[in-house]
């Protein structure tokens, strides 16, 4: 629920904005004064690095730069090198599959659980709390634990699947086969992301007035029809929030992959995040690293804009 209120200011600022035109000069100045610290903060910690990162992607930025301060411009060299790099092209695909797969899984399961728990029953609160656990565990810890679970020979998953006769004795090569590793990473990320989706969607469900459901029931609507015609439409603003936030945190994934597979086997789990890391911090080619970083920022920016538009539309019409 808190999330929804925190989104509301988008609406509030919209209103204030229209009012500013009428407000006296002094009052207007005062308003800017209040906004100033936030603006300064954004410019310093967000704007400055962002601009620098863009500039950096057109420079030969190497360890030497840190000693001499010289970073000669090299035009589009970094961009050309990155786009010609097969690893980058592969990483774009992997990132896309990883993100879409993760979001689909997280969202569907999260929504199903949210709907399930929105009916009141005994111990529902406690079970919900337990389901939150994956969210509380640090990403790296989850990854290390999952690495053990997914181990082909001694991992728990294969042992269990074999015991119920689902897989042959040598098990599924979860992390050691290039054709399965990305799927395994997606599964782990889904597991990690379910609580976030569930909590926010659960909050959204609580917001839907009970009497709408009662009216639907009186009209003789079945559970599926109720879900499609009432729950989903009324949940839409929350769904956009969940999906966009989920997208932004998934697309730049790094720690999970590094801990799980280090991008392997055979580069099958390299994503834009791991490629940036590799270029910048292992090869110390900060210029090329910045290019991939910029691509990531660009992708996130596109979705951030979509998100803002979607929200403006929702709140503009609603309430």
């Amino acid at each position, binding site marked *: 629920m808190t999330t929804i209120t925190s989104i509301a200011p988008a609406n509030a600022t919209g209103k204030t904005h229209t009012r500013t035109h009428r407000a006296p000069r002094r009052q207007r100045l005062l308003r800017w004064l209040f906004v100033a610290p936030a603006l300064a903060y954004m410019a310093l910690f967000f704007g400055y690095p962002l601009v620098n990162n863009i500039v950096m992607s057109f420079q030969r930025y190497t360890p030497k730069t840190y000693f001499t301060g010289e970073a000669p411009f090299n035009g589009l060299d970094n961009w050309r090198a990155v786009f010609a790099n097969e690893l980058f092209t592969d990483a774009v695909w992997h990132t896309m599959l990883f993100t879409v797969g993760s979001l689909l899984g997280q969202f569907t399961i999260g929504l199903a659980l949210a709907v399930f728990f929105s009916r009141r029953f005994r111990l529902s609160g406690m079970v919900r709390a337990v389901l939150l656990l994956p969210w509380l565990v640090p990403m790296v810890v989850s990854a290390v634990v999952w690495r053990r679970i997914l181990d082909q020979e001694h991992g728990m998953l294969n042992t269990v699947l074999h015991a119920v006769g689902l897989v042959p004795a040598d098990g599924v090569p979860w992390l050691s086969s290039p054709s399965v590793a990305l799927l395994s990473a997606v599964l782990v990320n889904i597991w990690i992301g379910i609580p976030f989706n569930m909590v926010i969607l659960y909050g959204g469900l609580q917001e839907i007035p009970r009497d709408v459901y009662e009216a639907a029931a009186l009209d003789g609507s079945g559970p599926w029809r109720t879900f499609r015609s009432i729950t989903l439409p009324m949940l839409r603003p929350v769904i956009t929030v969940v999906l966009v936030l989920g997208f932004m945190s998934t697309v730049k994934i790094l720690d999970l992959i590094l801990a799980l597979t280090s991008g392997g086997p055979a*580069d099958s789990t390299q994503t834009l995040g791991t490629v940036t890391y590799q270029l910048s911090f292992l090869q110390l080619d900060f210029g090329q690293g910045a290019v991939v970083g910029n691509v990531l920022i660009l992708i996130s920016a596109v979705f951030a804009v979509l998100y803002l538009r979607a929200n403006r539309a929702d709140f503009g019409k609603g309430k």
Partner: protein
Amino acid sequence: MPSLAGRIRAGAARAGGARVPVLAATLACATAALGLTGCAAEPDPGTVTVLNSATDTAEHTANQRFFDRCAKPLGVRVEQVSVPADQIASKVLRMASSDSLTDILELDGSELPQFAQTEGLRPLAEAGVDTSGFSASATSLGSYDGVQYGIARSVNSLALIYNTKLLKDAGIDPPRTWAELREAAKKLTAGDTYGMAFSASPNADGVYQFLPFFWSAGGDEAKLDNGKGEAALQLWKDLVADGSASRSVVNWNQQDVNDQFMAGRAAMMINGPWQVPVLSAQKNVDWAVASIPVPEAGRAAVPPIGGTVMAVPKNEDDPAREKKAGELLNCLNSEQNQLQWGESVNNVPTRAAAAQAYATQNPKLAAFADLVTTARSRTAQVGTGWPVVGDALAGAFQSVLTGRTSPEQAMHRAQQQASAGK
């Protein structure tokens, strides 16, 4: 070799990618103001500062003992700034951009060229450091473009560590050639135990472990597709195809390999002397060290040389500090200090005479002492190009082990990648 966990922690801290260094640079002064090294503050003339990766308490204390011993006659104190091994490089860069470098930097040997190329390091001869009497491999570890910028107190390498009981029960001597290795590994594979374990992870660990096979076969890091390295890929592939090594080797770092060995799930493994304290502390498995098997009998093994080197950054404002750092390095590298230091960290001293004494006093680790004399530096040929070459090699063995490409294709592609990255 940095552990995976450490690398991940660093990775997490650096998530957000390329934006970080810029931000870090701007924040360097701010952080410095919070009590680290001064941004504009005058360095204390009575203190020599060292940046190293001794974050482990025991290692930090041991280091300090040697530093104190050498600093006392010089009338100075030594202060260590320790950060995790995989963060050394970025820390040095931040310090360089804020003009707050320590008087001595302890860098990983494979990273030295990157820093030597910046022209920010003082050639050791100019800083008055005596670099005579060192083994050739140790000298090359600290050199860039024929100039020595770094000096290693001790070095490590890789060897074959085996479970003495399992080999004895099977009536097998430690294998000396690749053919013997394959055969022994096959015989030793039974039940839950694989004959052989090694790290083929797609990062520094895996590359480090691939090199002894690659080099012994005649592979050349400057020309990956010279037709020789394929044999090493084939050997690794065969070991996995035979079922003598787990298919999970593509995920194992050197720590994982050691864990498998200690759990009795591997009869032999490739690993380095840094595992010795852990191995000695456990009671389940009796182990011994042998040289890494070579393609044919009579050939010398060519393992990689690893370890850290100490370098002196240029200090134009205060050349006296450079000199003091040089004197400290001379003392740390006296024969006696090297020998004692080597024993405390289970690495081999770099002065030939000290290495000799080390082998005699630690017969169990003598194999390592012998190996480092023929060991080869990763950066001697390709210098700053090493990270790209290393990545290309990792790509090659990973795609061969997972059955994506043939060894020939893999090496061909690796060479393309390595030359594209230049």
